[in-house]
């Protein structure tokens, strides 16, 4: 097991920076859903590619942790591979593709299908932490709206959607109310995943590196997706099963199979799919990557 790159601290960030981020995390956990500004550091990947998630993970990861990294639900997409190997190199931790074996899961745009458990931490990569940003572009004003719990503007947007389309037209990064107080952007997870955040036993941390904000949802916190009484929030559904493992009630990726637009649907969560498929055939699921 490597003990880190030469010349770099364990976990890449220096200890002062880790402390600063942990203090920010504590504040975030104490005020669920509130965006805490922090002095985001540069890390060796570009802004927009997960630097917030990386800083949060770097601040909390320790030698006994087991890390899973996914992007679009898959362990094998290029950016997930890149981040996982980064932490393997700088923090010397065990990594895994199995959701149930990870202590920390860093994710871009999905929550795993396997329900999370007490003691697990999920770190979300967030591009835009401000749920009101496209309705009110000034930071000075959105700060006020949060302070005064003045969220009428968000409901206007939902109203307009229903008036125009008959539905709320937001399908990902669907705004939620946390602990009945703060409006929060859950990151661009599909609305399908929103219900998983509600009263999750896991600690949910959100890092926005470029926008320099951290926020959190402590375990067993209420997370409610916005809606109207007569147009309640409805997560998107897939009626088909996965073409590989047969699972239903999971998020599916559409894969184009020929140039006439033919397609098939397969699990977005590769870990779930592999294990479900293995269970069907009786084969061994993939070993933990050391």
């Amino acid at each position, binding site marked *: 097991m490597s003990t880190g790159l030469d010349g770099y601290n364990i976990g890449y960030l220096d200890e002062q920076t880790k402390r600063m981020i942990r203090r920010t995390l504590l504040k975030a956990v104490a005020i669920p859903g509130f965006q805490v500004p922090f002095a985001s550091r540069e890390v060796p990947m570009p802004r927009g590619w997960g630097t917030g998630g990386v800083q949060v993970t770097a601040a909390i990861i320790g030698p006994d942790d087991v890390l899973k990294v996914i992007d679009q639900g898959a362990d094998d997409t290029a950016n997930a591979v890149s981040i996982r190997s980064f932490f393997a190199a700088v923090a010397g931790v065990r990594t895994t593709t199995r959701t149930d074996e990870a202590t920390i899961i860093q994710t871009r745009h999905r929550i795993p299908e396997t329900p999370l458990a007490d003691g697990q931490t999920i770190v979300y990569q967030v591009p835009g932490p401000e749920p009101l940003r496209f309705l009110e572009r000034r930071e000075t004003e959105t700060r006020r709206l949060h*302070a*005064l719990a*003045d*969220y*009428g*503007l968000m*409901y*206007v947007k939902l*109203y*307009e959607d*229903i*008036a*125009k389309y008959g539905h709320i037209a937001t399908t990902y990064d669907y705004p939620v109310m946390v602990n009945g107080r703060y409006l929060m952007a859950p990151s661009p997870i599909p609305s399908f995943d929103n219900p998983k955040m509600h009263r999750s036993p896991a600690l949910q941390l959100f890092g926005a590196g470029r926008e320099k904000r951290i926020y959190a949802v402590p375990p067993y916190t209420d997370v409610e997706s916005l809606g*109207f*009484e*007569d*147009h309640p929030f409805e997560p998107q559904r897939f009626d088909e099963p996965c073409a590989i493992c047969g699972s239903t009630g999971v998020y599916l990726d559409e894969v184009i199979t020929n140039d006439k637009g033919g397609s098939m649907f397969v699990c977005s969560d590769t870990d779930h799919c592999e294990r479900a498929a293995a269970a069907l055939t009786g084969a061994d699921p993939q070993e933990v990557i050391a």
Partner: protein
Amino acid sequence: MNDAQPLLEVRGVGHAYGDPSLSKHWGCRDVDLDLWPGEVLAVVGESGSGKTTLLGALSQRLSLTEGSIRYQTVDGKVVNLAELSEAAVRRLWRTDWGFVHQNPADGLRMHVSAGGNVGEPLMAVGWRHYGHVRAAAAEWLERVEIPVDRIDDAPVTFSGGMRQRLQIARNLVVSPRLVFMDEPTSGLDVSVQARLLDLIRSLVTELGLAVIIVTHDLAVARLISHRTLVMKDGHVIESGLTDRVLDDPQAAYTQLLVSSILQG
């Protein structure tokens, strides 16, 4: 509701522009007035008279350099507005007060539908039923004589008069007790003005609104206000029942103002 207390009690109010430690330019000074529920008070004067500054100071858009404003809340308590937190003031704006801007674009979301504009104050105070919000918005559009089939159109497609009526609907949908109006009819055609004033007058009576309306047009004051304040150079130079002030002006300046309008 305490009948012995006015809705708004204004004493010695003044607002100065510029650095207070250096020479000040007083926009308005030494203004006293009482406003009672259901009363319409017109503040008239030429440009530079201080009437807009006074409105700004009363509606908390401008800070008070001098004086005090006390407001009686719906549960009968009297509060000094200067002592309220920003959150409390914002709450008052959502439930108790309205502000109709001279330019309707300043008081509307120009690219949000009419229904959305009128529905927003309801949603801001917790309405969570789309159908009810839409129905309430439609009812108000009817009341301000906007065709209900325009409910999904944005005010950017409306005429000036229609925008102004929409702004009024947006302000009144939460049944406020006090509405500030800043020259709501100037910039509109004369016939449109007349219709709008009629509408304001009937709504005010129907809802028992208290209104402070700033205008340079004495005819507007005559048409809808109970009492009138005349301002010049930042000071109130005459006040009283509208009919009395306009028919029997005491101050020389008021006499000048009144005589200079053509009797129509």
